């Protein structure tokens, strides 16, 4: 079995599900002939036809709203927003309709749609192509927000998202689209949503992250290990709803927590996790929680983006800081 990248795992999951379930459709800008600007949908239109792999006009609100209509008719639309920088005009459709269709009709209609979008910085992309604004969706009741951090989890979580009876925002960390390869059996096996994945066990400090930052976080754990510090690494994976049990259980053991995310610090998802610790894990905490996050400013154009994004060094420093407390 060949090893594949995260983006290939996305394609593989889409293809599996489209082959398995006629109700699955893909729609978005340039997803058809072009196979997506990142090639996530490459080959799908050839294989499943232009009626099921739909190039839409350039209109994001339409894409999301149309997906809601398709889903209400029992289809399983997987809509792509080309970059997270262009996702904001769909918040209205997601918040006012997709997330609450089931609730407001008391179950008569529902909205089993997936909304995919690449996000995050670090690829020297143009302006508006590098932000991480997952927190906006994590605040909307009725949604799920899922972020993979490896090819295997991209495959398994995307399958789960497509089979979920409720709307899922599936955010793909584009910096690691092609960074690592791993064997991902194309067996149609989904991974569970709504749970964190503990990627590395440890006893001294808990590092919590998701998406592309898992890379830096794991590297920081390596650096810490060299110093004799045992770091547990948790990939949150589903940032809404949050699996607080896994995080609390870990911090109960380590007493220390560093939260790492690319998004702006203020009101990021890291705030919710730190709040969880302040509200439900306080008695476990042996040191102040540390947030290593994007700064509270506009993501700079690419010349400075590396200075903006959390580095391994910053994660290590934060972990060491939590360990200063006895």
């Amino acid at each position, binding site marked *: 079995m060949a090893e594949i990248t995260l983006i290939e795992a996305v394609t593989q999951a889409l293809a599996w599900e489209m082959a398995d379930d006629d109700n699955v459709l893909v729609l978005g800008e340039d997803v058809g002939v072009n196979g997506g600007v990142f090639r996530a949908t490459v080959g799908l239109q050839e294989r499943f036809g232009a009626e099921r792999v739909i190039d839409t006009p350039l209109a994001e609100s339409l894409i*999301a709203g149309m997906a809601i209509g*398709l889903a209400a*008719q029992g289809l399983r639309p997987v809509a792509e927003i080309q970059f997270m920088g262009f996702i904001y005009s769909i918040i209205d459709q997601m918040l006012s309709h997709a997330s609450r269709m*089931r609730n407001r009709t008391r179950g008569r209609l529902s909205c089993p749609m997936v909304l995919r979008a690449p996000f995050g910085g670090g690829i020297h992309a143009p302006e508006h192509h590098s932000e991480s604004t997952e927190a906006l969706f994590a605040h909307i009741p009725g949604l799920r927000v899922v972020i993979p951090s490896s090819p295997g989890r991209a495959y398994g979580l995307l399958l789960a998202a497509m089979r979920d009876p409720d709307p899922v925002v599936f955010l793909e960390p584009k910096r690691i689209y092609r960074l690592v390869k791993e064997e991902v059996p194309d067996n149609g096996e989904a991974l569970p949503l*709504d749970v964190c994945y503990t990627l590395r066990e440890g006893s001294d400090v808990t590092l919590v992250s998701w998406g592309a930052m898992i890379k830096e976080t794991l590297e920081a754990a390596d650096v810490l290990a060299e110093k004799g510090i045992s770091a547990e690494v948790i990939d949150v994976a589903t940032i809404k709803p949050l699996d607080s049990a896994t995080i609390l259980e870990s911090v109960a053991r380590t007493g220390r927590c560093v939260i790492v995310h690319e998004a702006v610090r203020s009101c990021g998802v890291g705030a919710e996790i730190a709040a969880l610790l302040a509200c439900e894990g306080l008695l476990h905490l042996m040191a102040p929680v540390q947030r290593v996050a994007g700064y509270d400013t506009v993501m700079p154009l690419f010349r400075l983006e590396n200075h903006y994004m959390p580095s391994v060094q910053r994660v290590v420093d934060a972990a060491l800081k939590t360990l200063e407390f006895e």
Partner: protein
Amino acid sequence: MESVAQFTINYWQFLNADGQAVAELPAFTQDPERIISLYRAMSLTRLFDQKAIALQRTGQLGTYASPLGQEAIGVAIGSAMRPEDVLIPAYRDHAAQFMRGVRMTDILLYWGGDERGMDHAEAREDFPISVPVASQCCHAVGVAYAMRLRKQPRVAVCCIGDGGTSKGDFYESLNAAGVWQLPVIFVINNNHWAISVPRSGQSATQTLAQKAIAAGIHGEQVDGNDVIAMTARVAAAIERAQQGEASVIEALSYRMGDHTTADDASRYRSQEELDKYAARDPISRLNSWMRETGIWSEQHESALHEALAVQVDQAVKAYLATEPQSVQSMFDDLYETLPTAYKNQRDELVAAQTPPDGGTDHG
């Protein structure tokens, strides 16, 4: 310089404001049953409306949007649609919803602050009321796309107001309907006002029907207070839709009431304007024609009103007698299965309703 594209917008009317036929009437008008059913539906809507406003004024209903004077539009839509079609309404379209089988009680529940009004037993595939103006147009595109994909001879009918035509969602949807030649119809209730903003404040266009030209789909203007014209033209649009031609129908009408019960239209419009449009009322217009053609009489009228009054009263009673939802209902349809993460909150909510015996009193 050469002319490369030409367009025309047509206007349709069969009965003028006085109820006189101004064009050869469509065949269905030969059927008194059909005409009377349209008349009955408009009258029911109006009676319901009076009742709803009375309920609101007496604190038994929340803010409510009246379709007074615009009953022909919804009734025509509902009458022309087939059961298998899908209605995507806004918030002033209960005339159409009633025709689709939604109970008056459901509409009262909705405006009475109870989500179960959107869980109507009939028309299960129809969309619930949409409050965010124009957002529903995009849903209609999705519904119509699904129909086309499955090669079903069905159509989606989407309702919107004159104000709604200024929103991007309206245009994005028309445009997409054109690209994919979808079986969808957008009916604009041009009631001349969007709350306090007059039609002229929404768009400099001569007509709203011409918005269709920007999408390459069919657009036309219809006298929205002529239920015969409306029924005929919606039916024609349903035909076209099945051939892959989407339509915009601008129904010219007038909002005779306040925007909602929370509004006071006298702040921004004149009695003269009201008087002018009162003379074009859709119900009295059809009444005149029915009497003229001999299928209707004073006796019919009073019998109808008695029957309708009973119907409306029963609906109101059923509404008022509806047991409240449990508080936890607010969590029960949030997801198909409530995620573990939120179970605590549901429990907290339930607990907050039933103070434990001997609980502390914080008064």
